[in-house]
C-alpha cells in the first residue's frame, strides 16, 4: 500500500505542468513551493512495498511551535469574493477534480481507495504542503479555513469519496499546525511536507447510535505518567492502514482531548469498515486495546477538541456543497434533454420547481458554510455558525441527493450515472464526526 504513493510518474505530472504554467502562480509567489514539490517528486525512489506502519522520528529540538497567522477577514465589508490566492487554489482544485477525480471515481469506489496516480497527482497539487509552515519544510504561509473549504468544495464536486481520502491527512496537518507543540510538530508535521506524507486521519466518530462527539466513549486512564487508551473509532478515512491518528478520548481528570496515536503499536487494531458511500475513502474501524501514551501525545487542550469537532463538520459541509453542486450540474441538463409526453420534462413545474429548490439550497448551504469558515479565519467565535451550517447541510444535502436520483428516475438508480453514488455519499453529512478538518 505504500507503493502507490512512491510512484510519482503518471497523470499527476501533466496537472503540475498546467499548474506551473499558470500566470497566477508567479503573481502570487507560489512558483517556489510548486517547484519544490516537483523537485521532491522527481527524487522520489521506488521503495519496496511494505505493510509495516510508518516510524516517526523527531528531527530537531525547537523550543517553540510554528504557528501560521490566521488569514483575517479583510476589513469591514460583507463580501463574497475569494482572494486572488483563494481563487487560484479554487481553480487548481477544480481542474484536479475535473481531470483526475471524476474519471477515476468509479474505479476508486470499486477498489475502495484512490489509485496511486490520483495520490501522486494530489501530492503535486500540494494540498498537504500548504498546511505545513515554511519553517517546517512546507509551503504554508497563513492559516485559512476558508481556503481549505473552497478546495474541499471543488474536490467534493469531483468525487467525495476520493476527496475524503486525500483530505484526511491534510486535516491532521492542519491540526498539528494549529495545536501541536514544538516536539509534536517536529515529530509529525514535518512528515506531511515530505514526498511520502503519512496516511493520517482525525478519528472522532464511534460505533454507537446517537453518538455525541463532545462526549467520547473512548477512555484514557491515568497510570503513572502514562495514559492507557481504550476504545473504538468508526468510519475513519484511511482507517485500515493509517500511520497516524488523532483520536478523541475522554482523558481521566481532563475531559475530552485529542491524542496522537502511532498505529504501529500492536495494541491498535485496524480493519476495513465499508459503508453506504464514500467507499473510495478506505473507511476503517480502529480499536485501541490499552494503548500506552505519554503526555507528549496530548494534542492541544479542551478548546482544541471542541474546535476540531466544528472544523471537521465544516470540512464535511464543504465537501457536501461541492457534491450537491455536482448533482445540480448533472440534473439541470438531464431534465432539459429528457423527453416525456412529447416535451422535455423540465417544462413541467413538478420537475422544474424541484430543480429550483435544489439550486436555492445549494447556494444556502454554501453561504452558511462560508460564513462559519470566514469567522474562524477572522478570529471570531464560530461555534454557533458551525452548528447551524452543519445542521442545515445535513438536512439539505440528504434531500439534494434524494432529489437528484428522483429527477433521473430509473436512470438515477442504476450506476450508469454517478447520482446514485452521490446520494450515498451525501448521507454521510450529519453522521460523520472528525475524519476531515477544514
Amino acid at each position: 500500500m505504500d507503493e502507490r504513493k512512491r510512484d510519482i510518474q503518471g497523470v499527476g505530472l501533466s496537472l503540475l505542468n498546467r499548474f506551473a504554467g499558470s500566470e497566477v502562480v508567479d503573481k502570487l509567489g507560489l512558483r517556489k513551493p510548486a517547484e519544490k514539490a516537483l523537485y521532491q517528486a522527481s527524487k522520489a525512489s521506488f521503495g519496496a512495498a511494505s505493510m509495516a506502519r510508518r516510524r516517526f522520528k523527531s528531527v530537531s529540538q525547537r523550543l517553540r511551535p510554528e504557528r501560521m497567522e490566521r488569514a483575517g477577514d479583510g476589513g469591514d465589508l460583507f463580501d463574497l469574493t475569494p482572494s486572488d490566492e483563494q481563487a487560484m487554489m479554487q481553480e487548481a482544485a477544480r481542474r484536479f477534480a475535473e481531470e483526475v477525480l471524476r474519471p477515476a471515481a468509479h474505479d476508486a469506489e470499486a477498489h475502495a481507495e484512490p489509485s496511486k496516480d490520483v495520490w501522486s497527482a494530489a501530492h503535486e497539487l500540494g494540498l498537504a504542503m500548504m498546511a505545513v509552515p515554511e519553517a517546517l519544510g512546507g509551503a504554508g504561509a497563513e492559516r485559512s479555513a476558508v481556503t481549505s473549504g473552497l478546495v474541499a468544495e471543488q474536490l467534493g464536486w469531483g468525487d467525495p469519496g476520493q476527496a475524503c481520502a486525500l483530505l484526511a491527512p491534510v486535516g491532521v496537518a492542519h491540526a498539528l499546525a494549529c495545536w501541536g507543540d514544538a516536539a509534536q510538530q517536529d515529530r509529525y508535521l514535518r512528515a506531511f511536507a515530505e514526498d511520502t506524507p503519512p496516511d493520517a486521519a482525525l478519528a472522532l466518530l464511534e460505533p454507537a447510535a446517537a453518538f455525541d462527539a463532545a462526549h467520547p466513549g473512548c477512555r484514557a486512564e491515568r497510570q503513572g505518567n502514562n495514559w492507557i487508551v481504550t476504545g473504538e473509532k468508526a468510519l475513519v478515512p484511511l482507517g485500515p492502514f493509517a500511520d497516524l491518528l488523532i483520536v478523541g478520548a475522554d482523558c481521566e481528570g481532563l475531559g475530552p482531548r485529542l491524542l496522537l496515536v502511532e498505529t504501529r503499536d500492536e495494541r491498535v487494531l485496524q480493519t476495513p469498515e465499508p459503508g453506504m458511500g464514500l467507499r473510495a475513502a478506505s473507511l476503517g474501524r480502529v480499536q485501541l486495546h490499552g494503548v500506552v501514551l505519554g503526555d507528549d501525545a496530548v494534542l492541544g487542550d479542551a478548546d482544541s477538541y471542541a474546535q476540531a469537532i466544528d472544523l471537521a463538520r465544516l470540512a464535511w459541509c464543504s465537501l457536501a456543497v461541492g457534491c450537491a453542486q455536482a448533482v445540480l450540474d448533472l440534473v439541470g441538463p438531464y431534465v432539459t434533454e429528457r423527453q416525456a409526453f412529447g416535451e422535455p420534462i423540465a417544462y413541467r413545474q413538478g420537475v422544474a420547481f424541484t430543480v429550483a429548490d435544489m439550486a436555492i439550497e445549494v447556494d444556502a448551504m454554501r453561504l452558511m458554510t462560508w460564513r462559519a469558515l470566514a469567522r474562524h479565519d477572522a478570529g471570531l467565535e464560530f461555534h454557533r455558525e458551525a452548528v447551524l451550517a452543519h445542521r442545515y447541510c445535513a438536512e439539505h444535502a440528504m434531500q439534494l441527493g434524494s432529489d437528484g436520483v428522483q429527477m433521473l428516475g430509473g436512470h438515477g438508480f442504476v450506476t450508469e450515472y454517478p447520482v446514485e453514488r452521490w446520494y450515498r455519499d451525501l448521507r454521510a453529512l450529519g453522521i460523520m464526526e472528525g475524519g476531515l478538518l477544514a
Partner: protein
Amino acid sequence: MIRLEEPRKFRPLVNQAHQVAAEIFRPISRKYDRAEHAYPKELDMLAALLDGLNAGNSQAGAGVGGVSRSADGDAEGVRNGSNMNIVLAFTELCWGDVGLALSLPRQGLGNAAIVAVANEEQKQRFAGCWAGMAITEPGAGSDSAAIKTTATRDGDDYVINGEKIYITAGGRCDHVVVWASLDLKVGRPAIKSFVVPKGTPGMDLVRLDHKMGIRASDTATIRFSDCRVPAANLLGSPEIDTSKGFGGVMQTFDNTRPLVAAMAVGVSRAALERSRELLAEAGIETGYSTDRWRQTAAAAELTALEAEWEAARLLTLRAAWMADNGQPNSLQASMAKAKAGRIGTRITLRCAELCGALGYGEDELLEKWARDSKILDIFEGTQQIQLLIVARRVLGLTSSQLK
C-alpha cells in the same frame, strides 16, 4: 475577501431602526392589529424622524428610496451600499411589526418603483411623495401581463381605466404607481407604469380590505374611470418595444424582492427570539449543542428553524450585496424571496406551536406574527412565481417553455 458579517459602518443605522422597532412599533403592535384601518398617528412623528435620518445620511438612506442601482465602476472594489443598508434596516423594523413598517409614510413600494425606473425630472418632481403600488386586478394577480387596465394617449395626457386591488397603503398614500396597458393586443411590452396623484378626478378609493394579518397596514381597492394624468407621469419609455418584453416594469422587483425577504427575516427572528425566552421560562434549555440527539425535541427544533432562518438571511444579504455592486441579481433576488417567504411562515407557525397556548393566544405576539408572515410569501411575487423565475434561469428556459 470572503466575509459574511454585517458591516460595522451600518451599525448606527441598524441600531436606530431597532430602537424604533422596540420602542415605537412593539408597544402599539397589538393596538393596531385590533384597530384595523385606524391610522397609526404615531407614525407621523416617526416619518419626520426618518426624513431627518435620510437627509443627514446621503449615502445610505433608511427608506425604500435606497433601493437604487449602483452605477458600474463608481467606486473602487467591493461596495456595501444602500441596498444592504435598507435590507438591514427593514429586517429590524419588521422584527418590530411588519404592518407598521409597511405603513411608514413616504416608504411605499411605489416609491421603490419610482427610484428604480423614473428619470431625473420625475425623481425630483415626486421626491417626498408617498407612493403605493397598483398592479393586481380582480382578474390578474401573479399573471401581471394579463392586466386589463388601459392607458390611452389623448393629447398631452393618458386616460386610465380599470380597477386595481391589494394596493398596500393605498388609502393613506398620496400617489399611486399604476400598471396599465397602452395596447391590450400587444401584451407584456405594452404595460407601462404611471404615477397618479391622489385626488386626480376619476380616481376613486372603493374600499379597504379586511385581512388575516398586517392589519396595521391598509390594503385598498382603487377604481380609475377616465382618469387623466400628464404624459410626463409615465415611468420609463413610452415606446412599445416588443424586443424588451416585460423588462422595464419588472426590474423594480429585483430591488424590492430582497426587501420583502428581509421583512420575513425580521418577523421570523422575532418569533425565534421570543420562543427561546418562553422555552427558557418553561425550563427548556436551548443553545448550540453539538449533540442534537440528546437535546429536547423543542431545543433541536428551534436550532433547525434558526438554521433555516440563517440561510434565508444570508441569501437576502447576498442579493442586496450584488445590487450594491452592480451585478445582475434577478435570480438571487428570487432565491432570497422564495426562501425567506416560506421560512417566514414555517418559523412563525412552528414557534406558535412550540409555545403552545402562549403561542396561540393574544397575550403574546407570536400568533400575530404567524398571521403577518403569510403575506410575505405572496406579495411582490408568490412562492410559486419565484420558483418559476429561479427554474427558468437555472435551466435556461423561456416563459413559453416553462409556464
